[in-house]
């Protein structure tokens, strides 16, 4: 009985978010019958790729009991410096090399976070707040602060690679870019790491209780270091996709997005205390945030209200289950 209600609670965030998404879509369709279309769906899919990859990364840090706010700075750093490097060295580099460089740079920057967290044992929020500024400042000061719209041809090429494209019966154009596949791969890879490897289970264990993890002989430092490098690598990937899809390397973009990303993850049920988080929840959270950011206008709410809406969703989405848990606890006491 007790277990059942707690089990409900665990899935509570996810069901709640799913219900809100469905309600939102119904509302949007009601006010604009064209909303429910392949075009909208593919547009939202495109918009979810970058934030989705970042959210998966942020979720992994939250599960391990830490928090990372520097991943947007890593993403933009990796994207911009990769573009500059490619243009300077070998503009015709194939897109997968460009991606690999960006992922590598991201992983190295993540390793810097890992160094401070694992070796110096500093609190993760403080470390990543610091590196957020440092990475961004270093990028703007030493690498460049000009927007680059003449991207390497292969990067532009990537943004034109489509899984499917076409025109709906209503005559509107739609397309699913290959970038969506990157999100799918990231989700599958993370799913595998978290649930099918001892490393992943160790990350959950560390988030559950750091001290106990040490006592039973889990390689805590190794796992934590991996988490920060992995987050860096995913940020590098998200960054380069962002640049390619936007067809511009803008050193001022992305930073500022980190709180929306963490909001999406928390909406999906990951807990800030660590040890809890699901990919389903995270993806639902991302969908909701993207939906609100892109389609609020459809239901007649001015777009300036989207921050308020996101804030309310967070308060409701995380506050309601917490409140219910408290009531249940008070009742059973």
């Amino acid at each position, binding site marked *: 009985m007790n277990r059942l209600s707690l089990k409900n609670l*665990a899935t509570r965030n996810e069901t709640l978010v799913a219900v809100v998404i469905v309600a939102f879509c119904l509302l949007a369709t009601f006010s604009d019958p064209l909303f429910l279309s392949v075009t909208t769906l593919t547009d939202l899919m495109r918009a979810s790729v970058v934030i989705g990859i970042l959210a998966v990364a942020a979720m992994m840090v939250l599960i391990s009991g830490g928090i990372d706010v520097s991943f947007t700075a890593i993403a933009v750093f990796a994207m911009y410096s990769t573009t500059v490097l490619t243009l300077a060295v070998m503009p015709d580099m194939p897109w997968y090399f460009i991606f690999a460089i960006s992922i590598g740079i991201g992983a190295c920057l993540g390793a810097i976070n890992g160094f401070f967290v694992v070796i110096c044992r500093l609190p993760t929020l403080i470390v990543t707040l610091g590196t957020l500024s440092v990475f961004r400042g270093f990028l703007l000061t030493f690498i460049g602060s000009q927007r680059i719209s003449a991207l390497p041809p292969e990067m532009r090429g990537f943004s034109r690679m489509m899984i499917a494209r076409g025109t709906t019966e209503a005559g509107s154009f739609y397309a699913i870019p290959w970038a969506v596949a990157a999100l799918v791969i990231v989700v599958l890879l993370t799913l595998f790491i978290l649930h099918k490897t001892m490393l992943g289970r160790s990350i959950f264990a560390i988030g559950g209780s750091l001290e106990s993890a040490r006592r039973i002989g889990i390689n805590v430092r190794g796992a934590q270091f991996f988490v920060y490098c992995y987050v860096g690598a995913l940020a590098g990937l998200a960054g380069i996709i962002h640049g390619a899809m936007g067809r511009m390397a803008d050193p001022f973009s992305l930073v500022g997005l980190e709180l929306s990303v963490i909001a999406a993850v928390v909406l999906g049920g990951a807990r800030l205390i660590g040890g809890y988080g699901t990919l389903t929840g995270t993806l639902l959270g991302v969908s909701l945030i993207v939906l609100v950011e892109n389609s609020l206008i459809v239901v007649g709410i001015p777009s300036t209200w989207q921050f308020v809406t996101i804030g309310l969703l967070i308060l409701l989405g995380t506050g309601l289950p917490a409140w219910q848990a408290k009531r249940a606890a008070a009742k059973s006491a």
Partner: protein
Amino acid sequence: MSKHDDDTFIELKGIVKQYGGVTALDGVDFRVKTGEAICLAGENGSGKSTLIKILVGVEQPTSGQIFVDGKPYSHLNPRQAAASGISVIFQDFSLFSNLTVAENIAFATQLSGKKRLFDRGATRRIAQEALDRIGVDIDLDARVETIPVAHKQLVAICRGLASNARLIIMDEPTTALTGREVQALLGIIRKLKDSGIAVVFVSHKLAEVLEVCEEVFVLRNGKNVAEGPARDFNAASLTRHMTGRDVPEAKPPLNIDRAETLLVVNQLGKEGAFEDINFELKAGEVLGISGVLGSGRTSLAKALFGLVAPSKGSITLSGKNIPLGNPIAATQAGIGYVPEDRLTEGLFLTQSIIRNVSVGRFDHHRSGGFLDLTSLVDEARGWIEKLRIKAPDYDAEVKSLSGGNQQRVALARWLSQTPRVLVLNGPSVGVDVGSKADIHAIIRELADSGIGIVVISDDLPELLTTCGRILMMKDGRIDSIVMAGEMDEIELAAKLVS
């Protein structure tokens, strides 16, 4: 050098451990035989934790020798200790509350297998085997956060079994358990012994595990002070060895027949917790409330102080009605409450003694619009002296104090409010024997000074030494009222679980 008996598993000889200039262990000998249960007794600070840390390889001895199966070592490292089959169950169990029972049991085993991939099937199999060995049934897929404390302990035991433990060391195993759960634990310990696994109990509350033990080792101030077959010890002699003195039992309560009636509880009830509760408390009386976990004793204790809102009935103090479910009103009326879990409910651990004592009463130290710091300090010093709190000074952090002294700080806070009724929930949980006797003496003194005291506890000797009457609760009702002196501990224990 040592004569190696075939069945001696681990032997420590002349272990010395110094931290800086402090000698924690001074030539300690210790021995564990296969399939034997041992009590390692000692008060806080006696060196028993240090000895355990050396056994599991977390600390290295300054000098002395360790024999595992007759093989000498100057020290063990954690990996060697684990490989030799030494496993510790810490007081907090070291479990992962976010993971399933199966994963908690099998995690360490899987890790030592050097596997990279997580094998869910093997995890469940390992966990099920371990559970079968001690003959208990716990849902493998339940998250540990959802199972009761007694089950968490079993999961921790199974974790040791799963990694082929030959010696399981249990740190304060009975603190969180009710009487009935302790009995169930002892049954499991017997099974472990039968299958050749040795068990070491580390505790300062050993009387209840004495019956399953073969040997007793007592440490005091880092030295062996007594050892021998368990049948030569009883609760009193253990206490004497641990404290080095005879702890006087508190005197039976005074005659209070003519005293003023302070608290009257009338028809108090709360759905699903307790029902039909009636009792009176006189000035100077110490009233015990007991019952197994889930009998409603804790809810009732909280209700007296307004932390739980009863749905019917009334509480009056000296004829004045106290609003239900309102702790502030209860405080103002003169009721004090010292919670069971002082660490999370009662004290601000990282704050100083003075702040812990004076919190909530800054009004009394007002001078103009400012705090009168001198009067704060005088008060804190007064209580440190009165309650014999062992602390460097009034600004010491509470978490740096021992359990007994922390409990005294919690008491000091309420006593400084000059309460007329004091509700003590588990006053000596997690407190060592010496401090416990002191706390009982303090309870006596307080009662003599005219305060009415309610003690909620499942520590039967404690109830029998401090209380005049004991209300036995069962399924949320007062099952019977026992007068102290009419029953001994064994009869009372039988009544508790009947």
